[in-house]
């Protein structure tokens, strides 16, 4: 076990393309850290550099206080779980798990014991003599984990280990990965493109975009205080709503009506030298059916009336979808998020909003509904550089 430090680590390919730029991350001993971002953001490259599978162009990587830039993967004492699991097809489950120990010339009795122990933890005991081709996806995934844990390495690196599993199994394995990590207390770096995994698994989350770190923090902190539009849009499902707005004389004019600014927000905006045109961000859960909001609360927010396009009942709550007239919020970050989600070319003009409202709401699909939102929860972003103007971090 050890802490891992990335000190302005950069990866530049021979053709000049920069995959990772000046990444600084300090991972504490025993910490579970998640690297998250859309494809091509450099998260896997960063992981491969920690593993030693890719060279570091500049900067320093320290594991347990020692510089390891020049060390081969096998000399770094870290284990990796691959998205494809990378199980050796010609070996049984037992041989797969014993492989790192055999290479390390561990004696037979110890190998046997360690493999048994790992198999027990991962519930693989009855499959030890089977070949990977005869295992289900979930079992293969567990064998891959087993191969990593038998060595008790300084750290685990996991490269999207759950993304080849079907949805239900993924949720199940997510909890077992989390439990396993707590049980073993081994420093873990976990790469995913799935923000749900990032939110649920990690002690801290590193959001990356275009090879650069956008923000590092605890999942809840990132959710509540995104440093910029990209993080705001990436973390959370359904995603944050973005509406273009203008600051005029201490109020915020938008398609949802005029939003009074609280003193706190005004102070932050002054400090941040906010421009006139901004993007207003609202989480779906900060909306509510106005009829269910008590009067004294109602005055702290804004109420607007709009037609409900689609109403989805999730049982515990309802998701109401609206479309507002007017321009859509535009920025480089939002375009990239849309491209990553595959929604860049989905037709539909205007601003679309999703509100998470109480299950007791009587709103009806296709008819106007009165919706309230909490003005205090509004986040404002600079459309030019994506910076969060109301960042409280």
């Amino acid at each position, binding site marked *: 076990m050890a802490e891992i430090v990335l000190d302005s680590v950069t990866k530049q390919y021979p053709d000049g393309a920069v995959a990772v730029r000046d990444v600084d991350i300090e991972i504490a001993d025993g910490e579970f850290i998640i690297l998250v971002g859309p494809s091509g953001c450099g998260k896997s490259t960063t992981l491969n550099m920690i*593993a030693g599978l890719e060279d570091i162009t500049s900067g320093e990587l320290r594991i347990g206080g020692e510089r390891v830039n020049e060390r081969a*993967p*096998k000399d770094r004492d870290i284990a990796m779980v691959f998205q494809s699991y990378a199980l050796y097809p010609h070996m049984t489950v037992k041989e797969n798990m014993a*492989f790192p120990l055999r290479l390390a010339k561990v004696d037979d009795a110890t190998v046997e014991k360690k493999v048994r122990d790992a198999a027990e933890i991962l519930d693989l005991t009855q499959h030890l003599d*089977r070949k990977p081709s005869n295992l289900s996806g979930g079992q293969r995934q567990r064998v891959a984990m087993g191969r990593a844990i038998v060595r008790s390495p300084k750290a685990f690196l996991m490269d999207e280990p759950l993304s080849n599993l079907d949805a239900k199994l993924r949720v199940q394995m997510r909890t077992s990965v989390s439990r396993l990590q707590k049980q073993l207390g081994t420093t873990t770096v976990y790469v995913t493109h799935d923000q749900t995994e990032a939110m649920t698994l990690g002690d801290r989350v590193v959001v990356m975009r275009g090879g650069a770190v956008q923000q590092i923090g605890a999942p809840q902190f990132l959710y509540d205080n995104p440093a910029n539009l990209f993080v705001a849009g990436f973390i959370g499902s359904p995603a944050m709503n973005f509406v273009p707005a203008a600051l005029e004389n201490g109020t915020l004019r938008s398609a949802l009506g005029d939003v009074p600014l609280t003193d706190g927000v005004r102070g932050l905006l002054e400090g941040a030298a906010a421009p006139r045109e901004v993007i207003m961000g609202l989480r779906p859960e900060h909306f509510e059916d106005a009829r269910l909001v008590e009067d004294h609360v109602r005055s702290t927010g804004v109420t607007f009336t709009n037609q409900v396009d689609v109403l989805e009942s999730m049982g515990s709550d309802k998701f109401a979808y609206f479309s507002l007239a007017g321009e859509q919020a535009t920025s480089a970050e939002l375009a990239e998020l849309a491209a990553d989600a595959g929604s860049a070319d989905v037709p539909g003009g205007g601003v679309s909003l999703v509100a998470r409202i109480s299950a007791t709401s009587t709103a009806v699909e296709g008819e106007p509904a009165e919706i309230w939102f909490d003005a205090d929860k509004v986040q404002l972003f600079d459309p030019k550089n994506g910076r969060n103007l109301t960042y409280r971090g």
Partner: protein
Amino acid sequence: MSHAVSPAGADAAVAEEPKLSPKAKAALSEGKKAERRLGLLLCAPAILIMAAVAGWPIIYSVWLSLQRYDLKFPDRTEFVGLDNYITVLSNGYWWNAMWVTVVITVVSVAIELVLGMVLALIMHRTLVGRGIVRTSTLIPYGIVTVVAAFSWRYAWTPGTGYLAETLAGGDPVLTEKVPAIMVVTLAEIWKTTPFMALLLMAGLALVPDDLLKAAAMDGATAWQRFIKVMVPVMKPAILVALLFRTLDAFRIFDNLFVLTAGSQGTSSVSMLTYNNLIKGLNLGIGSTMSVLIFIAVAIIAFVFVKLFGTAAPGSDGGGRR
């Protein structure tokens, strides 16, 4: 559904009947039957052609091998049973040719495997000028064997050949048995290593990158990754390459024909067969030798195919569907 059931085991047999009955096989649906008919129909032309160009000659040679049939004495043609086989198998020339063939086959294939693997790894790893590397590697394979064999012959001819003058010190190496076999083997290796490399390179492409990365993370050195991961995973490709090359090498003819023409006891079995069949016009003995070569080749193929059976990844008993 009616089977013959012995009185003693009647109960047991009746109880197990649902499992044992071949009903599943018999009760093919109409659609399945039509599909099967179509399958047979589509295969028919190929089967007919193979029967005409391969099946018939084989049967005819077997028939010839059972006769005394010499075109120099056509009147004395008669059925002699296995006499020709006894003649050939008790003949020193045949066994000498067999040994020469086996030595050339084993030595050349073994060296080709090692060299081919090295070349395949180089071609697989090369990032710059991949096309040039691959093309230049394949040149020997692209040259007509007889042409290449002639250039080897001239090179080893004392007086005019650069190899004879430099390496052999002016000795006529092609006129002595062992050196001549070495030269033939060398020519064979030079000529067909690229083919081996090509097949092995296809096998290398079967090894996922992640597997090698995983092995590196697990602590394997480059050599261990090669021996413990790459080779086992590409074993089917290695066996295919070995099978093709062994069968080819066993039938060696053109290199030998040009380089020594089988003199000084350097005949291979194919060479000997050619001499008997075409030069000696002895159809009976020649056909017997052809049939023996055919049997030897079939045995080699059978052994390799048996090896394949256990080499296919994931074929461990239970999991086959």
